[in-house]
């Protein structure tokens, strides 16, 4: 009897920790949880920023952790989630969050490490919703008074083909119109097989951004519709047809360049086609920044405000301001621009063009404080002069580089 009790006790001692590890925690028990519903193009941002915020510190070194608890969905669905009457995240939804250094050290963690999951206590409206394009591409009219919109980094979109079997290097506005608006009947070689045209469903920013740029409304697109970017990547990689073509967020493509090839795009009225980057192999998004590559959207970050216009959740606004490149108080303990650059987005401070509607004409843009030198130093080689506080012959010393303003 005593022996049996001992065996039970040992078994319990082994089983209990195992069960505790296997069960998802309640998201509400994580440190300072902020709930987000974002586009799947923003998943890499969630992973890297989520990691940094788990171990965020105050300027005095005290911990100031924030846990990004997120799910991904289409931009239009995300807008609907936070615009009244709101569409709460279902209580049964498995939410994701990223390991802190205590969970998994830097020597073990990479951005491809599977995220952790947690459970909701109840259905809830996200603290932050994200659209990877202008909200007006999804909904008519001005945003409701209860929702505050903040423009974040710029997101580019590409048309990609299988690198190993496609000889194509560019597509023109007119060709894209016929390929995706007419399908097989468009007779644009080699893109005549609609089963090899991999597109996205109607609520997705990737489809809507391209739709606005080539003049083919979303519902009229020909091709196979996929719910997620990984499915488009998978279909392109698996295809054996030189006529395969798909649409992706540039940062998704950037993560799979060995197997996929982005096509240069020639916009209407443009003399030549351009890649998002200076060349097919570069990662500098220079053509996005200066207007030569036209297929991009701002990311829009939404949070709820009270009747006085103040954020209902100040921590959510803190996260949004970080993403938008604003100065936050208290300062974060990591360089935000490094994260934005690493996930293939372009910070507003590095942009030199802007637009006000999806696919609309570009206009010159000058940010209040340029970060072009810093951004280029992260994604390429900066040609800007290095400096200390006062040594710039022209411009302003910022982050150790002479920015033009």
């Amino acid at each position, binding site marked *: 009897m005593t022996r049996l009790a001992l065996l039970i006790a040992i078994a319990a001692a082994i089983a209990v920790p195992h069960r505790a590890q296997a069960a998802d925690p309640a998201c509400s028990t994580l440190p300072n949880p902020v709930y987000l519903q974002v586009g799947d193009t923003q998943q890499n941002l969630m992973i890297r920023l989520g990691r940094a915020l788990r171990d965020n510190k105050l300027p005095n070194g005290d911990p100031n952790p924030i846990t990004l608890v997120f799910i991904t969905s289409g931009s239009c669905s995300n807008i609907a989630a936070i615009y009244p009457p709101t569409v709460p995240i279902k209580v049964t939804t498995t939410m994701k969050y990223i390991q802190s250094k205590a969970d998994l050290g830097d020597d073990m963690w990479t951005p491809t490490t599977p995220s952790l999951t947690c459970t909701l206590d109840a259905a809830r409206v996200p603290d932050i919703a994200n659209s990877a394009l202008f909200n007006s591409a999804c909904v008519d009219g001005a945003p409701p008074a209860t929702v505050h919109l903040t423009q974040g980094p710029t997101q580019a979109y590409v048309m990609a083909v299988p690198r190993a079997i496609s000889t194509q290097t*560019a597509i023109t506005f007119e060709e894209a119109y*016929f390929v995706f608006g*007419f399908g097989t009947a468009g007779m644009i070689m080699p893109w005549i097989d609609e089963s090899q045209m991999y597109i996205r469903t109607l609520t997705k920013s990737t489809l809507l951004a391209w739709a606005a740029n080539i003049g083919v409304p979303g519902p009229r697109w020909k091709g196979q519709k996929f719910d997620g970017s990984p499915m488009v990547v998978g279909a392109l990689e698996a295809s054996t047809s030189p006529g395969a073509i798909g649409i992706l967020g540039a940062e998704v493509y950037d993560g799979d360049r060995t197997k996929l090839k982005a096509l*240069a795009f020639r916009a209407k009225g443009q*003399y*030549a086609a351009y890649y998002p980057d*200076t060349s097919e192999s570069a990662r500098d998004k220079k053509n996005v920044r200066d*207007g030569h590559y036209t297929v991009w959207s701002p990311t829009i970050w939404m949070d709820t405000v009270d009747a006085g216009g103040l954020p209902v959740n100040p921590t959510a606004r803190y996260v949004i301001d970080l993403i938008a490149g604003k100065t936050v108080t208290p300062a974060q303990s990591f360089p935000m621009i490094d994260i934005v650059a690493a996930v293939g987005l372009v910070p507003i401070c590095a942009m030199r063009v802007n637009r006000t509607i999806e696919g609309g004409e*570009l206009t010159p843009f000058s940010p209040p404080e340029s970060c072009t030198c810093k951004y280029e130093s992260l994604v390429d080689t900066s040609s800007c002069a290095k400096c200390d506080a006062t040594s710039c012959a022209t411009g302003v010393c910022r982050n150790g580089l002479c920015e033009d303003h």
Partner: protein
Amino acid sequence: MMLRSMFIALPLVLAAACGDSTGNQTKDAAVPIDAGPSDASCFTDPRTYNELINACTTAVKVYKDSRPPLLKTDGTLPDLPPP
């Protein structure tokens, strides 16, 4: 006489097509870039949309001579087929 008029008019039409739409823009002389067509001009001080997308750049340019079969004879796009 008629043929001669055409020879005079055609270069003028083409020249106008290469010019700006507002009449006050700075347009550079054609520059040879990436072995592109001879009319591949670029703009050094881009202000308008057309100038921005055709601004001078050191970025790789890909020239594509494409005329989709369904393009109208005047170069415009036909309406999309009915859903």
